[in-house]
């Protein structure tokens, strides 16, 4: 099976992504992760105003098969949360890089170089090597 790995995203080896737009990062999980999880039934996301620390857990995604912690790819403050997705977490499977984003975060450091993250190519190499 082949998955999309949009070039404009920064990837975590734990399958979260960040899309940077100025001081705002949109956080989600990858199509590969969604496929691995299978039928997703539950999503727990932080309230607006919550401080996230890069690499630390900020929520959970649960499928019939497994429950996984979500790890923050950036350090900052949650400014928006996808409540529609919390009500219908199965929609994560439809558009993980678009409508099914999880949270938007205002970065603490706008000039974050994201040096701990993977490029699309690196991430693809990692998951397809698994």
């Amino acid at each position, binding site marked *: 099976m082949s998955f999309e790995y949009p070039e404009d995203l920064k990837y975590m080896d734990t399958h979260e992504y960040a899309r940077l737009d100025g001081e705002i990062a949109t956080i989600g999980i990858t199509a590969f992760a969604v496929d691995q999880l299978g039928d997703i039934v539950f999503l727990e996301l932080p309230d607006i105003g919550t401080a996230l620390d890069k690499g630390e857990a900020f929520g959970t995604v649960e499928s*019939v098969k497994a429950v996984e912690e979500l790890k923050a790819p950036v350090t900052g403050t949650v400014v928006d949360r996808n409540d529609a997705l919390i009500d219908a977490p199965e929609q994560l499977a439809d558009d993980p890089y678009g409508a099914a984003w999880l949270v938007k975060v205002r970065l603490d450091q706008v000039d974050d170089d994201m040096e701990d993250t993977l490029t699309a190519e690196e991430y693809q190499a990692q998951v397809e090597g698994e």
Partner: protein
Amino acid sequence: MTESLRHTPLYDLETELNARMTPFSGWEMPVQFQGIKQEHQAVREKAGIFDISHMGKFLLQGTDVLPQLQTLVPSDLSNLQPGQAQYTVLLNPIGGIVDDLIIYNQGTNAQGTEQVQLIVNAATARKDWAWLQSQVQDRVQMTDQSEAMVLLAVQGPEAVERLQAFVEEDLGAIDRFGHRVATVLGQPGFFARTGYTGEDGFEVMVEPEVGQALWRSLLDQGVAPCGLGARDTLRLEAAMALYGQDIDDSTTPLEAGLGWLVHLDRTPDFVGRSVLETQKQEGVVRRLVGLQLEGRNIARHGYPILHEGDEVGAVTSGTLSPTLGYPVALAYVPTPLSKVGQTLSVGIRGKEYPATVVKRPFYKRAA
């Protein structure tokens, strides 16, 4: 050292369908094909087929086979006629469950030899084999067919009709828990009206080539290939116990809600009887109950059950019921807290979520 995983004769046909495979009890088995929810729904509404060839299949032949098995199980086998089957448990001396299994009485063959088929769990097949070997006498010959035969479960409201298309004899004439040898695709097969989904259907044991052909034929008929994922959600909705999770060597059938297969008044002496007698007289200390949760969090195996802040038990199995739309779980709780309607809570990742004791099964098909 990792032991290499065994493959059933259907392995290539499953990987052809892009099944997601998983190690299970020493076998590499399909966990899902299209997705757990879809497969689950196919079995509840139409028909699905499961490769369960990994299960232990023992053939017992000889003299006084059932009377010898009777000393190992709490269910009365004296009225088990040829063509009938009994779901029961092997017990250890402390009344704990060695395994749950189905005993199929196949009657007497032309040579006058009694024949009994046992189907046991894959994870416990070796343990069961050793236990049975140590308990039955020379007059019973045991043959392990586990790797030699294919076992398919065809389950769902349309299962019998779909299967009938390839079988000469009338499958509708076989009662629930009945079985017979019938002709499938021109070859002999063992057909039992049993299952692990809460739906009607058959479990079919055949030679590998026949099994492969039957798998293909049923898929062509629109029967959905299903994996272990859907098998687990289906059995859990039907509140059927999973060995190693809900029942094990330390749980007795009376604690596990399997009292209906303990026939103390009718059954002569069997291993573990005195423990069950005491439990029956004094009552059990803990019971396996069904729980309904709010929200969508799954209470998984091992999560604590809390009552007024104290940990009082543990979840043994849990899922978000695809049919009912809410989370359900099985858990051991102290008997005083086991009544239907009792409110408890489940600790999920450090938070408490309310749960209510409900009747089992969670799902029951329309009669």
